[in-house]
C-alpha cells in the first residue's frame, strides 16, 4: 500500500469517527430534551385531584362553622344562638359544656359571655372544667361536664351565648326546653354568610322561630328567603334585616309566612356573618306537642347522613329536602334497617327552589331501628349549571304516649370518631346511640364514656357495610364513638320530658369524608 493511498483512508476514518461522535452527542441531547418533554406530558396526563364532593374518596372538608372538635386544640370558641333566658320564656336555654381533653389534658378555663346587644351589659361566667376521668378532676374538685342555665348568667329574651375555652378542648351543646319537651343541638364554631334550614312548618299550632346571632363587633345585614310548598317567598320585612353587633335577633317565621305545610329557610348575609339556629314549638293542636332545636347548615351538600330513628306506632319520621338552586335535582333516599337490611331506594325529583318532604318511616316495620341517607344523583337545568347541593332536615314526631318531637339536621360527612353530648335534663330517659356504617366495608366500633368510672365496660361491636347498629348507653355526659371506618352517629333520648335527637360532633383530625365543599379545617 502506497503512502498516497493511506492518507485518504486515515482521513476517512477520522471523518467517520467524528461523525459517530457527533451522532452520539446529538442522540444524547435529543434524549435529554425528550426526557424533559416526557416529564411534562406525564404530568399533563396525571388526573386532577378528585373533588371533595366525591363521597367515596373525598378529602377533609368541613365548614368552619360546623361543630367539629379538634382534640389537640387548646383554644376554642362556641356560639349558641337559640333559646331564651328569662322567666316564662318560650325556650329556656341550658348550656352543657364538657372538657374532652382526656387524661393527659389540662384544666379548661371557660368563659361564658351572654350578649344581648350593643351597649348592654354582657353577662359573664367564668369557671374551670377538669378533663374527664383525670386525677385533676377529683383532686381539684372540678367537674368535667357542667350544665348551666343561661338565665343564671343573664336574664334576657334574646341571649346570644359565646363560650370561650382556653387550656383544653371542650365540646358545647345547648338545649331548649318548652312545651313539655326538650330540644338540643351542638353549638356552632363560627359564623357563616349562608345558613340553610330544610325543615319547618307554620301550620296552625306551630311556631317557627329563626334566631340570628351576631357576636362580632360590626353589624350584620341579613336577607331571608323562605321555600314553602307554595313557592319561594321573600317578605319585605325579611330583607335587609340588621343584626347589631354582639346581639341576637329572634324572627317569627310563622308570622312572616303563616300557614305553610313546609317552610325551608335560607339566610344570606349582605354584610357580616351570623350564627343561625331554628326553634320549632308545637302546641299539640294536631296531637303533637314539643320543641325542637336545630342548627342551620352553613353549606349545601350532595350527601346527607341520618343515623337513625326507630319506627314506632304513632311516630312519623319526615325528611325535608331543600333544593335552593336554580336546577332540578334528583335525590335518592337509601334506607337501612338494623341488621344490614336495606329497603329499596326512594328516588325523588326536586324542582328548583323548592322543598320536598318525604316520610321515610312508612315502610319500616314498627320497632325497627333504621337510618337513611340522601344522595344527590344529578342535576338538570341550564346547560353547564350544576346545583351546589341540597340541605336536609328530619322531623320525628311522636304522638300518643311518650309524645314529643325531635329534629335532626343530619350530617354532611362521615368520619371515624365522634363525640356525643346530651344535656342532663332527661331524668329517667333511655339513651341510645345509633351508628351507621357509611363505608362499603365492615367496621369495628367502640363506645367510650368519658366520665365513666374506672373499670366500666367499653361497648364494642361491628357493623356490616351500609348497616346500622343501635346501642343503649347508661351514662350521662360525653360519649366518644370510635370506629375503624367511616360512620355517622346520632343520639336519641326519650323520657318523661320528651324526645331528643342530637347529632354527634365529628372529631378532627380523623379523616372526614364529606359532601360539602368548604375549606379544610382539620
Amino acid at each position, binding site marked *: 500500500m502506497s503512502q498516497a493511498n493511506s492518507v485518504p483512508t486515515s482521513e476517512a476514518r477520522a471523518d467517520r469517527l467524528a461523525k459517530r461522535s457527533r451522532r452520539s452527542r446529538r442522540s444524547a441531547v435529543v434524549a*435529554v430534551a425528550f426526557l424533559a418533554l416526557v416529564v411534562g406530558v406525564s404530568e399533563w396526563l396525571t388526573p386532577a385531584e378528585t373533588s371533595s364532593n366525591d363521597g367515596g374518596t373525598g378529602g377533609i372538608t368541613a365548614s*368552619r362553622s360546623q361543630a367539629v372538635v379538634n382534640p389537640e386544640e387548646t383554644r376554642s370558641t362556641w356560639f349558641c344562638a337559640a333559646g331564651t333566658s328569662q322567666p316564662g320564656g318560650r325556650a329556656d336555654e341550658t348550656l352543657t359544656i364538657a372538657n374532652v381533653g382526656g387524661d393527659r389534658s389540662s384544666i379548661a378555663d371557660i368563659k361564658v359571655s351572654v350578649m344581648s346587644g350593643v351597649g348592654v351589659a354582657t353577662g359573664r361566667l367564668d369557671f374551670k372544667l377538669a378533663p374527664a376521668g383525670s386525677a385533676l378532676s377529683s383532686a381539684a374538685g372540678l367537674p368535667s361536664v357542667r350544665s348551666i342555665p343561661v338565665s343564671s348568667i343573664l336574664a334576657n329574651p334574646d341571649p346570644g351565648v359565646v363560650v*370561650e375555652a382556653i387550656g383544653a378542648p371542650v365540646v358545647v351543646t345547648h338545649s331548649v326546653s318548652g312545651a313539655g319537651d326538650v330540644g338540643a343541638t351542638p353549638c356552632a364554631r*363560627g359564623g357563616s354568610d349562608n345558613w340553610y334550614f330544610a325543615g319547618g312548618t307554620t301550620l296552625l299550632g306551630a311556631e317557627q322561630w329563626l334566631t340570628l346571632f351576631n357576636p*362580632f*363587633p*360590626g353589624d350584620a345585614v341579613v336577607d331571608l328567603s323562605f321555600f314553602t310548598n307554595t313557592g319561594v317567598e321573600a317578605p319585605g320585612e325579611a330583607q335587609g334585616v340588621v343584626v347589631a353587633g354582639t346581639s341576637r335577633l329572634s324572627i317569627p317565621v310563622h308570622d312572616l309566612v303563616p300557614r305553610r305545610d313546609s317552610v325551608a329557610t335560607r339566610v344570606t348575609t349582605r*354584610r357580616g356573618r351570623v350564627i343561625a339556629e331554628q326553634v320549632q314549638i308545637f302546641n299539640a293542636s294536631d296531637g303533637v306537642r314539643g320543641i325542637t332545636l336545630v342548627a342551620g347548615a352553613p353549606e349545601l351538600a350532595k350527601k346527607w347522613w341520618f343515623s337513625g330513628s326507630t319506627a314506632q306506632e304513632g311516630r312519623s319520621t319526615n325528611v325535608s329536602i331543600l333544593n335552593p338552586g336554580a336546577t332540578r335535582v334528583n335525590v335518592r333516599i337509601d334506607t337501612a334497617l338494623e341488621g344490614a337490611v336495606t329497603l329499596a331506594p326512594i328516588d325523588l325529583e326536586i324542582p328548583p327552589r323548592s322543598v320536598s318532604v318525604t316520610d321515610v318511616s312508612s315502610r319500616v316495620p314498627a320497632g325497627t331501628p333504621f337510618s337513611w341517607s340522601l344522595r344527590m344523583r344529578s342535576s338538570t337545568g341550564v346547560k353547564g349549571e350544576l346545583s351546589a347541593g341540597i340541605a336536609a332536615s328530619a322531623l320525628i314526631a311522636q304522638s300518643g304516649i311518650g309524645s314529643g318531637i325531635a329534629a335532626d339536621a343530619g350530617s354532611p360527612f362521615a368520619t371515624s370518631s365522634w363525640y356525643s353530648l346530651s344535656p342532663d335534663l332527661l331524668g329517667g330517659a333511655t339513651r341510645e346511640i345509633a351508628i351507621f356504617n357509611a363505608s362499603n366495608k365492615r367496621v369495628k366500633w367502640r363506645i367510650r364514656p368519658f366520665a365513666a368510672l374506672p373499670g366500666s365496660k367499653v361497648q364494642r361491636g361491628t357493623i356490616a357495610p351500609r348497616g346500622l347498629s343501635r346501642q343503649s348507653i347508661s351514662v350521662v355526659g360525653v360519649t366518644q364513638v370510635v370506629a375503624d371506618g367511616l360512620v355517622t352517629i346520632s343520639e336519641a333520648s326519650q323520657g318523661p320530658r320528651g324526645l331528643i335527637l342530637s347529632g354527634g360532633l365529628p372529631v378532627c383530625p380523623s379523616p372526614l369524608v364529606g359532601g360539602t365543599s368548604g*375549606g*379544610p379545617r382539620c
Partner: protein
Amino acid sequence: MDSEAPEMPGGPDLGPGPSSEVEISGSDHWFTDGFEDLLEETAHRPPVVAVVVIRDAGEWLEETLLALDSLDYPDVTTLVIDDGSRYDPTPRIAEVAPRVFVKRRETSSGFATAANEVIASVQGATFLLFCHGDAVLDRYALKIMVDEAVRSNAGIVGPKVVRTSDRSHLLEVGMTVDRLGAPHTEIEPDEIDQEQHDAVRDVFFISGVAMLVRSDLFAEIGGFDPDAAPAAEDVDFGWRARIAGARVMVAPDAVVTHSISDSFRDCLDANPAQVEGARHRAMLTSARALSLLWMVPSAIGLSLVEASLSLVGGHRGRSGAILRGWWIALTGIRSGRPARLAAQSHRRVSDGEIRYLQSHGSSRVRRFLNGTLHADDRLRDITERSRTLTDTAGARVREPVGIAVCIFVALVAIGSRDLILGSLPQIGQMRIWPSVGEGWGAFTSVWRDSLLGARTLEPPLLLVTSGIGSIFFGATGLARTLLVVVAMPVGVLGAWRLGRSVAGPGIAAVVTGVAYGVIPLPRNAIAAGRMGPLLAYAIAPVLVLGIARLCGLLEAESRPRRRIVSLSVLLAVCSAWWMPAIALPLAIAAAFTISAPFTRGAGVALGWRPATKITLGTLALLLPWPITLIGLHNGATLGFSYSGSAKMLDLLRFHTGPAGAGAAGWVLLAVALVVLLIASGPRFEWAVRAWGLMIVGFAAAWIPQQISSTIPMPVREGLLVPAAVGLALAVGLGAASLLTDVGRRRFGWRQVSAVLATVALLLPALAFAADTLGGRWRMPSESWADSLSWMESRSSAGDFRVLWLGDPALLPLDPGRSGSVGYGVTSNGVSDSRVLIPIPERGDQRLVRQAVESIRTGSSNRIGAQLGPLGVRFILVPETPGPDQRPFIAAPDGITSTLADQLDLLRLEASPGLSLYEVVPWQPVRALITTEAGAKVVVPLRSDKKNPPGVVRFATPKRSMIKAKSDGKTLKSEGDSNWDNSWVLPKAGPVSIVNSAAWLRIFAVLLQGAIFLLAIRMWRSDSQRAPNKTKRRRVAGSTLPPREAAPSDSQVLGSSVSIDGAVSIDTALPITPSDGSSTTETEAGA
C-alpha cells in the same frame, strides 16, 4: 477664511509685511462706520506700553510681536520681559521686531514679579497693555480698548479672545467669579462667535491673555500680587481693582487670538495644588473679613464635594490638589496679611456691590462638569456618535432587520401606552418609590419600619431607587415607569447581542432578540408586578454573553476585570429587588457544565470561575446588608415567599400568568428542539448550551414544588429566566442553521422542518402582538395601595401598623410565610417601597408570625387581643390584584373565615376582592398608658404636647439603644414591659423617642461607599490598561525643549533708555535688526 476677510474701508494703508496677516474680524462694522470721526476725536492718543512677559516662549512669540508692531495705534511701545528663559529670546525677537525693548531676568520669579517691574521701569505711559506671548492682537484692538477706557473711564479693559486656529470659536469675553471667588468665563466650550457677547460691559476681571491697565491704577494698587501666582494673578488684580473703585470692562470689538497652548510657564509648571491655593488666596486677600466668615466654609464644603467626586471619577491627583490647595491657602494667611491690608486700604467699594458683579451658582461645579467630566469632549463625542448612529440607523431601518426592530419597538410602545401615559399600579414589587430626599434619609437612617420596626440596615433597594431617582432629578414615578417599560427592550437588545456573538449577525441575531421578546415571561412578570424577575430578564442575556466571553467560549475578553465589575453592578441592581438573582451566574455556569459532555468538555470548569467572581462581586456590592441575613430562618427577606404547583407543561410555555396560554407557547420549544437536529459544528454546541440553560431554568422552577407544594421558593418568573435565554438562543441558532447548515444539504426533512419552524415562529409573535392591544400588559388598572390611601389620614389617632394577609402572589410586598399564608406589615397605611423587603425575623419580630399562625390555624377567636398590642390597627386580605380585578385567588387556609369569626375585629366596607378589618383593641405604636377614673386608658403619644403622667409604650422589640426623653431627660425604663419598650413618665411633659448609636449606620454607609469606590477603581483601572486607549493629554501642544539648568546669575541686557521723550524704559536694550548673527552679537554686546 481669514484671508478672505474684507479690507477695512477707509482704513490706513498698512503696507506689506507681517502686520498684513493680522486680520480684522467682521465684527468691527460699527467701528469702521465711524472710524474717521473717532480718529479725529482721539487724534492725540495716550501713550501705551505693551508688556509681554515671556519665559521659554513658544513658536507663537514672533506672531505676537509682529501683531504688536503692526498695531494701528500711534503711540505704543513694546517691552518684552523675559523671566529667566533657558535660552535668550533676544535674537528671535530682534529678527521680527527690532524696535521692541527686551528686559531679561536671569532667574525666574514669576509673571507677577516680572510684570511689576514696569512700575519702576516705565514712566510716562498712560496705559499698560499686558499680554501673553501667544496672544495676537488685531490691528485695531489696542485702539478700541484705549478708546473704551477713555470713554468709560475704565481702569482695566479687555478684548474678546478667540481661538487662533479658528477665529469663530470664542475663548473669553471678560471673566467673572462666583460668590466664592472661583473664576470662570461665561463662554461654553466650543461656543461659536455670533456676536452674541459683543456688548461692551463691566466684567469682574480680565485674564492675562491681553489686558489694558491704566498705569496709575497699576501703580496705586501695587501691580500684580506675586503671592497670587500662579494662575490667579489676574483674578486677584481684577478683584483689587474692583474694590479700589476701578471699572473693569470688556470691549469685544477688540479681538485677540490666543492659541491656548503657550500659557505662561508658571502655569504649566505649577503644581495644581498651588494653583488652587493661589485662587483661594485671591479670595482671602480681597474679601472683607465678615464676608469670609461664610465664603470660606462654603468654599471648603464645595471643594470637599469636588474632591470626592474627583476621587470617584478616578482623578485622585485632582482630588489631592484640591485639598492641598486649601492647606496652602490657609497656612499662608499669616504671610498674606500685608497684601490683604494693602488691598483693603484701597477699598472704596463694599463687598455687597462687588457681589452684583459676581455670578450666581458655583464656578467649581461648572468647572468640574466641564473639566473633570470632560463634558465638552463628551458632548462632542455624543454629537458625533449620534450623527453616526443616525446615519447608520437611517440606512439599517430600510433593511428587513431594521424593519423588525422598528416593529418590535413600536409594539412595546403600544403595549405599554397605558403605563407610560397613565400610572403604574402598585402591585407586587412595583410599589411607589419614596421621594429622593426620603429615600436617602431612610437609607442613612438607623431605623426601619418593617414588621415591628427595628434598628437594622436598610436593604440596597433603597440605595438603588434613591440613586435612580436622583438621576431623574427626583421624578421617581417616571423612573419607576421607565424601568418597567424599558426592561423588555433592554432584554431584547441583550439577546440580540448574544445572538450576534453566538449565532451570527443579521437575521440570526434578530431572531434571537425577537424570540426573547415574544416569550411571555416579561409580560407575566409585569402583569404580576415582579420587578426583580423583570430586571433579571433584562440583564440575563448580557450575563450569559459575559460569562461565555470570560470563560473563553466566545472571543476572549480583553478587559475581564472591567467586564466582571460591570456585570456585578448590573446584577447588584437586580438583586437589590430580587435577591435570588444573585445565583443567576451560577445557574449559567451550571448550564454550561451539564452541556459540557456534549460539547467536547468546553466550559466544564471555566464557567464557574467568572460566575463565582460575578456572584461574589455582587455580594460585595450589596454589603453590608447581606451580613444581616446570616442565620436567617425566614426566607421572605431573600424572596423565598412563594409556592404553588404549576404544571411542567405550563412552565415549558412560560405560562405563569395571564400570558402564554395556547398553542403558540409550544412553537418556540418545538423550534428549539428542531435546532438540535439541524445544527452542526459550533452552532450545535451552542444549541446544546442553550438547552442546558433551559433545563436549568425549568428544573429550578419545577423541582422544588415536586418536593412540597408549600415549600417557599422564589417567583417562577425569575427562576425561568435562564430558560428564556436558552430558548431564545436556540431559536436564533435555528435561524443561523437554516441560513447555513440546511442550505448546504440536499432537500429532506431538515429543510421541511426548518421551513415549518420559520412559519410557526409567527404564532408567538402574533400572541405577543395581541397582548399589546390592552396597552398595559394586563396589569390591573388600580391597585389596593391606591384605593387604600385614605388610611394615611387615620394616623392622627396615633401611628399604626397594617397587617397584610393572603396569597403571597397578591401581596404588595415580599411577604413572610406561615404555611401557605403570606403576610407583611406596613406602617400608617400602605407605605411605599421602603417596606418591600422585610427585615429578617428574629426574636420578638416573630410575634407577627405567631399571630398569623393563630389566624391560620383558627386557634383563637380574639386575634385582635394578640395583634392590638403590636400596634396593628388594620388587617387586609386581598383576594384579587386590585379593586374589581381578576383573577380571584381565595386566601389560603380559610383565613377569611377565621378572621370573620373574630370577636374583636370589626369588618369594614371594602371593594370586592378585599377583606378589611379593624382591630378593636388596637393600641398606637407610640402610646401613653394613663389612668382615668380608675381605669387604664391608652392614648396616642404626643411629641409636641404635654402628655399626662403614665407609662410611655413603644410597640417595637425592646432594645437598650431606644430611649425616651422628656424635657431633655432620659426616662426610666419600665421593668414590667414584656417585649416592647416602656418607660415611666413621672410628670406631664412632651416625650420623644430616639434611637442612639447611629455610628453603625454611618459605618455601613461608609463601607458601602468604599466598596463602590473600589469597584469604580477596578473598573477604571482595567479600562486604563486596555489596549488602543490613549491617555488623555493634560496639556496639549507643548513643544518646549527639556529644561536645562538655569543660569545662576541675573543678566541685565541694557541700561535705562528713554523713547520719544515720553516713555523711557530702563534696563532694556533696543535690538537693532541685523543679519543672522544678531543673537550672538547681542549676547556679546551684553
